[in-house]
């Protein structure tokens, strides 16, 4: 039988589910009687539903609960290190603190950030943190959103992303300036040019301060970056998107 129209498919589905009222059901049955191909389609559709219902139910892997308990404990410890309760969105608050620190560092008494022309101007004040505890890589994409971007002038602070297999920071630098900044921090050997930016192997960046400098290229401002134990994933620093700033 040729492909059925959407209308026929929906009518057939409603018939199988017993959703047609008496008259509509009788009419559909008459159509089936007159058209063996339609009857065969209905039977085949019923069989498909039966096959689906009989699929085996996969079980969660052994140790799922134990792994979950460990994960919750780890998150809890990380959150306590940030001085926040379990239910709070610690990542967001961490970024608030990072933004405040950026403002503090950019104040005339200086800091470790090396701004590039047009990239890191800003002013403001406030207390900040001196350490960012980078969360372990989750399965999904987590965006660490700065909650108060308006405290920094010169454009929005873009979120740091914690992806499946890397961290990602969108910087305010164009590709050339970014390359130049990276050279200053880690040299050439540890930098790989990729589409849209540069990938830095954090494994090769041993110093917390150097890692912080990398992160600060994305308009964050921290003095140390602590990576999760045993994890040295790459950091992708993206050059400034064309539409990010006027």
């Amino acid at each position, binding site marked *: 039988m040729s*492909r*059925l129209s*959407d209308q026929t*498919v*929906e009518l*057939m*589905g*409603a018939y199988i*589910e017993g*959703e047609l009222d008496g008259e509509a059901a009788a009419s559909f049955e008459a159509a089936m009687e007159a058209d063996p191909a339609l009857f065969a389609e209905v039977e*085949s*559709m019923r069989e*498909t*539903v039966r*096959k*689906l*219902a009989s*699929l*085996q*139910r*996969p*079980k*969660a*892997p052994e140790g*799922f*609960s134990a*792994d*979950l308990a460990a*994960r*919750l404990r780890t*998150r809890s410890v990380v959150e306590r290190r940030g001085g926040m309760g*379990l*239910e709070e969105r610690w990542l967001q608050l961490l970024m608030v603190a990072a933004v405040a620190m950026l403002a503090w560092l950019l104040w005339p008494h200086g800091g470790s950030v090396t701004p590039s022309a047009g990239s890191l101007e800003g002013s403001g004040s406030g207390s900040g943190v001196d350490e960012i505890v980078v969360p372990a890589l*989750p*399965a*999904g*994409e987590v965006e660490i959103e700065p909650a108060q971007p308006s405290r920094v002038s010169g454009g929005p602070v873009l979120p740091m992303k914690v*992806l*499946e297999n890397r961290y990602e920071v969108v910087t305010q630098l164009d590709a050339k300036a970014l390359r130049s900044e990276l050279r200053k921090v880690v040299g050439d050997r540890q930098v790989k040019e990729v*589409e849209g930016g540069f990938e830095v192997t954090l494994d090769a960046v041993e110093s917390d301060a150097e890692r912080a400098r990398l992160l600060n290229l994305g308009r964050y401002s921290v003095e140390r970056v602590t990576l999760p134990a045993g994890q040295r994933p790459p950091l992708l620093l993206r050059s400034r998107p064309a539409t990010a700033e006027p």
Partner: protein
Amino acid sequence: MQSHDEEQALVARLRRRESEAFTELVRLYQHRVFGLLLRMMGQPDEAEELAQEVFVNVYRGLDSFRGESSLRTWIYRIATNQAKNRLKYLSRRRAGKQESLDDHPDESAFMPLGEPVPRPDRAAEGAEMERIVSAALAALDAEHREVLVLRDIEGLAYDEIAQVLGLAEGTVKSRLFRARYALKQRIAAVMEP
């Protein structure tokens, strides 16, 4: 499945942060959540990781659970959202390669997991059918896949699916019927010589 009263009691215990209550919740839903995510993602590792995150989100979001939907619907909603976000991310990442997520379903992920049965010929036949149906399901687009899994595998009612997916009930039905037809066509394409 839990009765409404049992569920309310469990929710109350969860809100009091009784660790045993959370353990019970995980025991009740881990296989369902994992199964749903495995069907959505196609990769056991990916499904396990996402399932873990679902329960972390459930744990964190307990205070915001207002009980307007059932606990089960709420958990499925978190799980489907998690899967959608992940699929979106993977699709963006693969866009440059012009590949679809569905091009490479891990068919081995859907092989039967039960104990061996005494009739090898029938077992082989059943396993082959399971593989064909699973692969056809994995090859559907995500919108069709999720509605089929929720309705025909997990057995949710239309109104529950509507809550999980944030759709009108009529849209759920229409999408379900089209999804079943798409699946039937895919299975037929494999089965017919």
